[in-house]
């Protein structure tokens, strides 16, 4: 039973083919991590799935062809948070999270009590209640990421697409955010697709992985099948050592090439 099925996605931007023949499958309630080198097309893939980018191919969510849905219907099915979301500095946390109700409010209508209640309960769940009336410009990096997540959850969509949810966060906050996503996923049965540039992190959280390289899918499957020394060398140009950690999840360790001497101390 697949919740998300994408076939033959192709995206052309400014005459350049950014994605070609990309497909993926995610089962209901799973977490798929999209990995790949810089510029490989990870973010583009997420945008194509979210339907915010013109693309050819097919995206099905629960067998419903997403691209034939009206934007509002699609937004009730798929929530998307970009890598660096625009956070209007003057907007309050509550108002920002409330934007997630947009697909439920008529075009020129206004939100009702139910919309406000959903928003309030999500803020409470993410421990953001004390921040409700704070302006976005006055939040720390970790708080911002939680607020963006809150907005996506307020959308109450069964599919959550997160583009690099941990960018610019320190290790502790990365862990907090990803644990939070995992908790919400298990509690609400969400299907999660994230791009993650940190392979060790991706290996720890994802159920399945898709490796994108030069706009195509280079490998996909369980983390242990995708995070191999050979594939990482080939597609990232990086030398790593893979160690299987507790729970059978692969840990990725960067290794310096043998022939590299430590830099000389002077000319």
């Amino acid at each position: 039973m697949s919740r998300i099925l994408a076939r033959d996605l192709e995206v052309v931007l400014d005459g350049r083919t950014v994605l070609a023949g990309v497909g993926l499958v995610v089962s209901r309630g799973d977490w798929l991590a999209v990995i790949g080198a810089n510029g490989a097309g990870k973010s583009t893939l997420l945008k194509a799935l979210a339907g915010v980018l013109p693309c050819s191919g097919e995206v099905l969510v629960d067998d419903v062809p997403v691209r034939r849905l009206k934007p509002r219907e699609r937004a009730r099915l798929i929530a998307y948070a970009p890598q660096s979301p625009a956070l209007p500095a003057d907007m309050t946390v509550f108002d920002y999270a409330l934007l997630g109700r947009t697909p439920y409010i008529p075009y020129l209508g206004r939100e009702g009590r139910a919309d406000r209640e959903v928003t309030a309960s999500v803020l409470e769940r993410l421990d953001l209640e004390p921040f409700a009336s704070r302006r976005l410009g006055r939040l720390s990096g970790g708080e911002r990421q939680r607020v963006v997540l809150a907005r996506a959850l307020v959308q109450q969509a069964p599919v959550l697409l997160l583009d690099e949810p941990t960018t610019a966060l320190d290790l502790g906050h990365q862990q907090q955010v990803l644990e939070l996503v995992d908790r919400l996923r298990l509690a609400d049965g969400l299907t999660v697709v994230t791009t993650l540039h940190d392979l060790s992190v991706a290996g720890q959280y994802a159920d399945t992985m898709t490796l994108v390289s030069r706009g195509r899918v280079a490998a996909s499957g369980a983390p242990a099948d995708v995070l191999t020394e050979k594939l990482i060398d080939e597609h990232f140009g990086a030398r790593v050592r893979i160690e299987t950690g507790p729970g059978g999840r692969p840990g990725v360790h960067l290794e310096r090439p043998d022939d590299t001497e430590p830099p000389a101390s002077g000319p």
Partner: protein
Amino acid sequence: MTGSSRLRPGALALALGALLASMVAGLLAGAADIAPGGVVLQLLDWLPLVSADSGLAPVERNLLLELRLPRVLLGALVGGLLAVAGAAYQGVFRNPLADPYLLGAAAGAGLTTTAAIVFLKGNGEALVIPVAAFTGAVGGVLLAYALGNVAGRGGGTATLVLAGVAVSSFLTAVQTFVQQLGVDELERIYAWILGDVGGGWGQITLAAPYAAVSVGVLLLHGRLLDVLSVGDDEAASLGLRAARVRLAVLLAASLATAAAVAVSGLIGFVGIVVPHVVRRLAGGSYRIVLPLSLLGGAAFLVLADVLARTVLAPAELPIGVVTAFVGAPFFVAVLRMTRQAGA
């Protein structure tokens, strides 16, 4: 739960109070010396169900009714339109420096209005000028926007403004050319360009329907402008057709600008000063910024007109000079703030 920024009754009452106060000040100020007490009593007398003896001479009453009152009302109307249009442009372009004047909307409307005055020579102007002004306003904005996009793809806030300035200069040059074609109408055109809100009841009734439509549409779009403020991709992922909202707001804001320009000439900076003050004081949501800008802009321009009439009395300053005097330094301050915010 708190945290939602709704338009609070207190803020609304405050803005309404400021507008009323400025209008009373506008009715009291002027070249002719009318007793303030008499003016207040006369106003009360005009209210339905109230009767008061103002002790004003018929000439004074007439002056109040035919000169000062329409002047104050037209000032309020034009100020409100320019401020709400400025706030709307800022939302559409997600650019705190957007303004009917800096975007080329006013210059566009100025050009087409001048053309209408020159070529119609007074025939059917009342019907044609609003339409001409609207076409010019929309054309000016689109030209500035297109040029800004070509000049700097995804360029910062300043690119659009620079493009707007270039478009404005160009359109103003064309306007000058057109006005010289119609030497007979030169005096009227000059008086109109300098900007003034002394057009009387006729101008108010001319602008009122366009004002009502544009303001109504804009106020309905407050929530959607909030959604747009997170960017097009996210607005799309929230199920909103950003282009449709943009177009509706752009047309309504240009209609508001056109209505203001058609009846008052060129008065700058209202659209940038007022929304910024409102944002600072009351919050950033467009559901607050739009209605309060409307009221604040009205109060601001009425006061500016009081200054214009009194500073060099009995001579009058063009009202655009007053608003530029306040607005230009303000613009620099806003530019500085947005630069510091890294926008």
